[in-house]
């Protein structure tokens, strides 16, 4: 099984090189890309089953001891997020293949290989057991995302891409400084060793390290007040790209935040995290209410939903962290499918500005259903996955006696529902508008709609298996807060 851990990182990267070589041969390229992603998803599923049954698997790359070399660690948390992430990339790749013949579509000869690079980066970021490899993984993800965002070379994309690149490059440089600080303070970059040594540092140094990495990972995760790059850059990219960004990039930031803060025992920063969480929720959703374009509204919701996960982490209780994990698992597919639905609207109408579209509920009922189900889930209505995840978080909040943040999160939910209603009123009800663009070919529409439908089915499946998933989240949270399972698994 240890070979599988290496393969989920290496296989997409190798395949990316091969696919880049054959990028002119459409069919071969698509088949290779899809089969690689399917293989990686399958391996992630096998990994999750194996880890669930037999406990954490550790791979010491090159046979070096953890103190010296790189370790890849697949614990339950990593395996779960890995499966959700790779499955999401697989669905998006399918959508991209359907979208390639449409005018708004991204260039398939670029998207295929670069999505594979992104998948390799995501696997590495999720599995890595040391801080510097995490930096490299982040760079891998970011370089892929820079290219995906700007490869069409339109003016708006270059402008917002520039903001995105500059902000993320700055955060990466801060990350590098952070690695230097941590290494100077502890003499290691291995996370398990750090987990032993950081709590022994003077309190002020601990808080300093915590705050430094809160800024670094917070920029990637788009928490308040570091989110302003996100609603600016996401809507300009082609739908496929935005969907994968919204579903994955910020969530990897949150994953790393949860991992780092629980492992380094930075409980003192909990109240600060709760304040940030509340502000992120409210300001994100307020920004969404002010917008009048489907993609821009959804981009602000990405920010708002990050707040809920940070809230769960901020409690530093088993129930809170388990809620955050469950929310993370629910958000990745839901956010992706919302953007895919937005892409279907844009493909059908030629625009996603609410004022210029309308009446889709009667003219395109399939899109309406594909939008409505995840929208209700996002707002947290029963019986969808969003309800289960939010209930878990609110429950944890009440158990911790944090009434303010619970109230804020409920207000945020209502405002989310309000802005979903706004999209519904603007796009799906009202007078039927004539599409501004010629219809896409039936085949590409079918592929796009069925891949969005697969993703919707995935989000519903999460609601159905909510019980077992909650048990798993609780076990993950117990292990994360206990810290010893991770440390003993890595250091032996």
């Amino acid at each position: 099984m240890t070979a599988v851990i290496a393969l989920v990182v290496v296989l997409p990267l190798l395949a990316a090189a091969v696919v880049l070589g054959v990028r002119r041969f459409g069919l071969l390229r698509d088949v290779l890309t899809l089969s690689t992603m399917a293989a990686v998803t399958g391996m992630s599923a096998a990994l999750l089953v194996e880890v669930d049954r037999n406990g954490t698997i550790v791979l010491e790359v090159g046979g070096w001891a953890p103190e010296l070399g790189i370790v890849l660690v697949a614990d339950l948390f990593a395996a779960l997020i890995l499966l959700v992430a790779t499955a999401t990339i697989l669905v998006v790749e399918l959508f991209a293949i359907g979208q390639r013949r449409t005018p708004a579509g991204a260039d398939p000869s670029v998207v295929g290989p670069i999505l594979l690079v992104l998948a390799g980066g995501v696997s590495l970021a999720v599995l890595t057991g040391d801080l510097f490899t995490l930096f490299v993984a982040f760079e891998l993800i970011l370089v892929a995302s820079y290219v995906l965002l700007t490869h069409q070379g339109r003016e708006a994309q270059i402008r917002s891409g520039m903001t995105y690149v500059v902000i993320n490059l700055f955060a990466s440089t801060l990350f590098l400084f952070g690695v230097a600080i941590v290494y100077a303070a502890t003499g290691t970059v291995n996370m398990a060793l750090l987990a032993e040594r950081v709590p022994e540092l003077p309190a002020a140094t601990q808080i300093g390290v915590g705050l430094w990495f809160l800024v670094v990972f917070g920029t990637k995760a788009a928490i308040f007040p570091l989110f302003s790059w996100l609603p600016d850059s996401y809507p300009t990219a082609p739908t496929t790209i935005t969907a994968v960004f919204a579903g994955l990039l910020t969530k990897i930031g949150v994953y790393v935040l949860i991992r780092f803060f629980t492992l380094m025992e930075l409980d003192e920063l909990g109240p600060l995290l709760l304040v940030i969480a509340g502000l992120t929720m409210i300001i994100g959703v307020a920004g969404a209410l002010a917008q009048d374009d489907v993609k821009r509204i959804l981009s602000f919701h990405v920010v708002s939903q990050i707040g809920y996960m940070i809230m769960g982490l901020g409690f530093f209780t088993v129930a809170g962290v388990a809620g955050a994990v469950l929310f993370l698992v629910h958000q990745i597919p839901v956010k992706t499918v919302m953007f895919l639905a937005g892409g279907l609207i844009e493909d059908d109408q030629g625009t996603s500005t609410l004022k210029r579209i309308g009446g889709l509920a009667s003219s395109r009922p399939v899109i309406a259903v594909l939008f409505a189900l995840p929208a209700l889930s996002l707002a947290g209505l029963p019986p969808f996955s969003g309800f289960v995840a939010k209930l878990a978080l609110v429950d944890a909040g009440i158990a911790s006696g944090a009434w303010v943040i619970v109230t804020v999160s409920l207000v945020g939910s209502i405002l989310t529902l309000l802005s979903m209603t706004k999209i519904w009123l603007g796009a799906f009800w009202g007078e039927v508008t004539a599409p501004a663009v010629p219809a896409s070919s039936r085949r590409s529409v079918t592929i796009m709609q069925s891949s969005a439908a697969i993703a919707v089915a995935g989000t519903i499946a999460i609601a159905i298996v909510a019980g077992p998933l909650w048990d798993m989240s609780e076990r993950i949270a117990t292990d994360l807060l206990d810290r010893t399972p991770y440390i003993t698994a890595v250091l032996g």
Partner: protein
Amino acid sequence: MIVAVAGLAASGTFLVTSRSLSRIVLGFALLGHAAVLALLASGGRAGAPPIVDADAGAETANPLPQALSLTAIVISFGLTLFVLALARRQQILTGDDLVEDDVEDRRIAAGEERLDAAGAAEVLARGADGRDTDDEEVRS
């Protein structure tokens, strides 16, 4: 070494905050150097080259930060090139290398100002800053 890191980081940050893209690229080059120096400084004192079987008796330098620095240098080199390419593309498209404002933000902000001018009396009466009314305007 620490002074050098501080100086490089300060001038790098100053350049990054400017509006001209060419300055931003230069700023990132400086910031990258600062981070690499900080990594090296975190490894302790300089010593003999850390080569296996070399001079085992002498105090050797810590090889780990050196390996990390090399990786970081390669990454920052590639990214600097990418940013330069982006800046060049923007220069072709728009004819200058300034960072531009977000058009959509400008549009929504402009809508707010128009509303402020029109409904100034109402806003004053409410004692609000105009933001609330704008939200309602868009919502309705």
